[in-house]
């Protein structure tokens, strides 16, 4: 148990010690999106009645920051440890696979949620944000950050160099998040693209998260939850199996 707590603390410290890059920078990025998009589109777009575009945009931006940072934390921590070789410090001790998994998972979720919270708080300076269903909001924040932490762990285990991670980032994470309705409602899309979007898990994360704030969404949050929970379970199981097999970590 203490082994797990220590690994979790270490992983938290790792990003906290360089929070300018790991927390402050992503908040600033999200803020720039908010300023630019809301400036350009505020007058032209209204998705939900009574909700300004800037307010509509906020949950999407928060969620996008959560996802990208949850992914970045586990994946970059693992690849750095693998490349510098100091991964042996966590492979030598008697930590179980479960402890290893949970520590990386929770630390990554923590970073994702911390950045998300930061974006939300700074965003409040620019717009009012209702909070219709805090429980839905939390449910989607937690499950979504867990999913992307798992993907981050998997990617960190699989990748041999930073280029591999950049590949996943550019060809998977960014397209999935941008094509999920961060900046728009999918109802504004042609039917074909609406159908495609329904296969994108990130769509459910953002849509459900948004429901937590406005009580309105494109699909029912229950449907979203029905997508998220199995996804969390499947990815966790996959990660645990991979850790147990020693894939790429124990030759």
């Amino acid at each position, binding site marked *: 148990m203490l082994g797990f707590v*220590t690994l979790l603390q270490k992983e938290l410290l790792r990003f906290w010690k360089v929070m300018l890059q790991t927390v402050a920078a992503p908040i600033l990025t999200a803020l720039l999106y908010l300023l630019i998009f809301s400036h350009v589109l505020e007058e032209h777009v209204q998705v939900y009645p009574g909700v300004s575009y800037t307010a509509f945009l906020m949950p999407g931006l928060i969620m996008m920051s959560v996802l990208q940072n949850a992914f970045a934390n586990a994946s970059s921590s693992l690849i750095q440890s693998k490349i510098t070789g100091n991964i042996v410090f966590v492979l*030598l*001790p008697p930590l179980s696979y479960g402890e290893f998994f949970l520590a990386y998972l929770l630390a990554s979720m923590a970073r994702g949620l911390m950045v998300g919270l930061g974006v939300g708080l700074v965003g409040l300076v620019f717009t009012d944000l209702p909070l219709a269903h805090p429980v839905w909001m939390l449910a989607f924040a937690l499950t979504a950050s867990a999913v992307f932490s798992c993907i981050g762990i998997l990617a960190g285990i699989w990748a041999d160099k930073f280029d591999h991670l950049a590949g996943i980032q550019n060809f998977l994470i960014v397209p999935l998040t941008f094509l999920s309705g961060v900046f728009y409602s999918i109802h504004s899309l042609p039917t074909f693209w609406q159908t495609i979007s329904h296969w994108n898990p990130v769509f459910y994360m953002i849509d459900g998260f948004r429901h937590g704030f406005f009580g309105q969404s494109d699909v029912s949050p229950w449907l979203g939850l029905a997508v998220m929970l199995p996804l969390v379970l499947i990815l966790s199981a996959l990660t645990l199996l991979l850790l147990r097999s*020693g894939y790429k970590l*124990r*030759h």
Partner: protein
Amino acid sequence: MAAAIRARGLEKRYRTVHALRGVDLEVEQGEFFALLGPNGAGKTTFISILAGLVRATAGRAEVMGHDVVTDYREARRRLGVVPQELVFDPFFTVRETLRIQSGYYGLRRNDAWIDELLHHLGLTGKADTNMRRLSGGMKRRVLVAQALVHRPPVIVLDEPTAGVDVELRQSLWAFIRQLNREGHTILLTTHYLEEAETLCERVAMLKDGHIVALDRTEHLLGADSERRLELRLSPARLPEALKGRLIDCDDDRFCLALPDYGELEAMLAALRLEGIQVEELNVTQADLEDVFLRVMRQP
């Protein structure tokens, strides 16, 4: 009593390399044991299998009676490994590094022991220095300390003295010896064979993944049979009576077998008889390096 380390038919194939080809080895509790071999012989691979960093292709290994795969948590609790590669976590100071490592082993308040380790390894003044700012030798010392935070009964050192200055080498060995006296089992790999010779009771030599020699150090050194007399003579010529003893010569130097000190006087008399002067005289004993080279040369 379970062996400190036991390997049975251990094999490891990397994609194209057969790094270990069936290694059987037992190291008893309390031994100071050397695992020697040229670069690429498979020493690090063997150690990595013990530590669970590498999975064996075939065979099994145990640490203090605990299988390193099926009972990995118990095995790892009992093992401390100083890795060959100089690795460190640049995010932390020396003390933070050691506290974190203690935590991984479930030890909460370990500072008394950490301070002792820092003291023995000459790191007390560096406790609050970031790992990045340490010299190479200092980082190596921290690696040693990290391997010892949980006071493992079995300590494995993979070339711990590479790049370490004379003073620390001596204080490190004094410390490791003390741990050995207190009952810790030590397995050591090194390319400084005189270290192995003076420290280790038993030696295994590994070549291309095979154990090619395994014996007590003094047996390997072969007691007296290898003693030699080295002479520089003027004129550079050997009396007929001594030619049978000649092992090696170049120019005015001659190397003769000297199985027994009692024969020295007769040999010198033979030289005197022919008016040959001894300009230099050395008695040498085969050391582990000679034995090592001989063993490695055998096909």
